[in-house]
């Protein structure tokens, strides 16, 4: 249920944030004076970037450099685009802990969506890169689930498992589970290739392809997806099936056998 609410939160949050952003950046003015809309947008944009720069210098600059040029502790952010920022910060991966294992894990996000948007706007201003996708791009309308499944098995399943349960990579790295990951973030991850994940830009995996993949994941790996056969045992395949069969199947049968073979109290007396 928790996951469900987490999934629901994002689109709603986006709406609220949008309103807030409008208020912040003098959007109200733009509503009253449609003629100067473009101009207002521009000022709003530059304001957002300013705010983002402030946030950046506090939370990110120590590793990624004051101008996003990168240091020995963090890669350059020039040209990574707003989508990368939204993914990394909103999933809590960034800012990362100072001492890292082989991979930066997902954790609780410390920024509000408005702050993330400001950060994203600042990073996007450093160099052109993929923008944050819209609901229309990652939403379920018009998606072909079956095609998505085929694309998923070609491009994603090798690391993330048949239904996105995750899997191991070399030296302690891993492909995380995709369960409960917001469609927007899945889209962004494909677009930008966070950490060791390769990117799948629109030139090789079209927008429609990405939409299909997300729809497929929603069908097979969400809190409402069906597992007609019963308990899905983690969806890990034969390893968990074997364990379950040994423990509950054979274990249960041996327990029954012990009962069958046990001598009754009556026998002990005789």
């Amino acid at each position: 249920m928790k996951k469900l609410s987490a999934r629901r939160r994002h689109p709603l949050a986006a709406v609220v944030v949008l309103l807030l952003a409008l208020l912040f950046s003098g959007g109200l003015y733009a509503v009253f004076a449609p003629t100067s809309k473009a101009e207002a947008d521009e000022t709003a944009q530059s304001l957002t970037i300013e705010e983002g720069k402030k946030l950046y210098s506090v939370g990110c600059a120590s590793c990624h450099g004051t101008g996003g040029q990168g240091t020995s502790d963090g890669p350059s952010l020039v040209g990574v685009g707003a989508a990368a920022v939204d993914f990394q910060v909103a999933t809590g991966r960034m800012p990362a802990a100072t001492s890292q294992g082989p991979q930066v894990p997902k954790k609780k996000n410390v920024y509000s969506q408005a702050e993330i948007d400001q950060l994203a706007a600042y990073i996007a201003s450093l160099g052109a890169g993929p923008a944050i996708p819209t609901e229309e791009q990652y939403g379920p309308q018009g998606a072909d689930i079956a095609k998505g499944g085929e694309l998923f098995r070609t491009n994603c399943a090798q690391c993330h498992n048949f239904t996105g349960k995750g899997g191991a990579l070399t030296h302690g790295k891993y492909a995380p589970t995709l369960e409960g990951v917001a469609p927007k973030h899945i889209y962004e991850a494909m677009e930008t290739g966070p950490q060791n994940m390769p990117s799948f830009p629109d030139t090789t995996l079209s927008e429609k392809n990405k939409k299909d993949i997300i729809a497929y994941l929603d069908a097979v790996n969400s809190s409402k997806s069906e597992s007609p056969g019963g308990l899905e045992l983690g969806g890990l395949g034969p390893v968990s099936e074997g364990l379950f069969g040994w423990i509950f199947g054979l274990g249960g049968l041996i327990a029954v056998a012990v009962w069958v073979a046990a001598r009754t109290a009556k026998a002990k007396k005789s």
Partner: protein
Amino acid sequence: MSTAQDRRKAPAGERVADWADGRLGIYSLAKANMRKIFPDHWSFMLGEICLYSFIIIILTGVYLTLFFHPSMNEVEYHGSYVPLQGQLMSEAFASTLDISFDVRGGLLIRQIHHWAAIIFLAGMFVHMMRVFFTGAFRKPREINWLFGFLLFVLGMFTGFTGYSLPDDLLSGTGVRFTQGAILSVPIVGTYISMFLFGGEFPGTDFVARFYSIHILLLPGIMLGLVVGHLILVFYHKHTQFAGPGRTNKNVVGMPLLPVYMAKAGGFFFLVFGVIAALAGIATVNPIWVLGPYRPDQVSTGAQPDWYMGFAEGLVRAMPGWEINFWGHTLVLGVFIPLVLFGLFLGIIALYPFIESWVTGDKREHHILDRPRNAPTRTAFGVAWVTGYMIMLIGGGNDIVATHFHLSINAVTWFVRIGFFAGPVLAFIVTKRICLGLQRRDKEKVLHGRESGIIKRLPHGEFIEVHEPLSQEQMYTLTAHEQYEPVEIGPTVDENGVERKVKGSEKLRAKLSESYYGEGAQIPKPTAEEYREITSGHGHH
């Protein structure tokens, strides 16, 4: 049973029996077997679990053949499972989807079939371990041990050919692995591969071929072996644990009719019931999320069913050795695991013969050993199981890595080292534990059981009261025989001429020493020792 006092009034049942006896001679058969004795112990029912799950597999398997199409013709799917609609897949895969989603109860039967297979193999494994650790494989049961071993190995391959039939992405990856392993066989590998697959991989033939192997060839052989196995169990009469009134010359237990019949018959339904409920609760091999097989697609976590996991582990742990010479390639990285797989299983098959050679023991045995009283055998068995389990871990190294947050490379190295070190360590530790337990048994017999009651003696010393064991318990603890190691024998004959001692004889004496030498068993308490201690020197 029929007393035939009054033929005229013989009830219908008796008349049918008479009719059958006149044609089949059932009375003499029944006379010998109707009150046949079966010892009661839960571990003697492990074999029954296997037998019953085998029957369940055959019943459900016949049902599945009614709906399954063993064909690799490509079709476009238009059934009721939405996430695959419009996908190209083989007819085999499509018909498996139909069984799962469109045939009422088809999913249940499929899942019973698969769960029963997993339990069948697991049951055989545990049954085999039970027979091994209690020494039930000794004369006269070596042949039955081989029958059982063959059943286990054939079961593995029947399972493999079975789960490959749906032609899904997971099993297809397994078949691809098999093809790669076949290719690694020197000289004939490519030919076998071409013949098995009717050309290049994957071709359009293997599902149909696996099908006839899976439903006809292997189960046919297995059925024969099962019958042989059971006939031999009947003929040899069951083994029993030591105890008062139980000797090597008798068998103590419940008669076939009625107790054993009721219990064993009832147990069939219990096994079937548990597996059916399991199939209703937990999904197994959900091929619809795996998708149809395509040789350019794959998923992480590509593992075989558990009974092949051991082979998978061997392959994963092996370093990539490859030797090129005179225009040929020796693919040791795949071929060595293939050979090891056979050897590691084969040694278990040959063990009864090895043990009887080493110990020089050629007598019949019907009393089971307690594992502690045969420390070397027990230690060997535990070492074998340790090796097996480490390879199982190796077969699932990626799942182990992700779930315990380890590096997959570290897990692989652990498996590589563990495969050699683990069994040795297990051997030593197990032997120590067995000897310790033997010592404790000796203590118990000589000084009685610790009662937990503390008594204060007149001079102030506290002692714990030891309760002497009952006659029955004492008998049970000292019933086992202890052996002498086989000696090489005099190396000089009566005329003073030196006899040549064969290397094999020396080896045998060495091994025998390790089985029954000083370090390998604690002399069991003798009656004299017991009398001496109990005759008034008190406790200590």
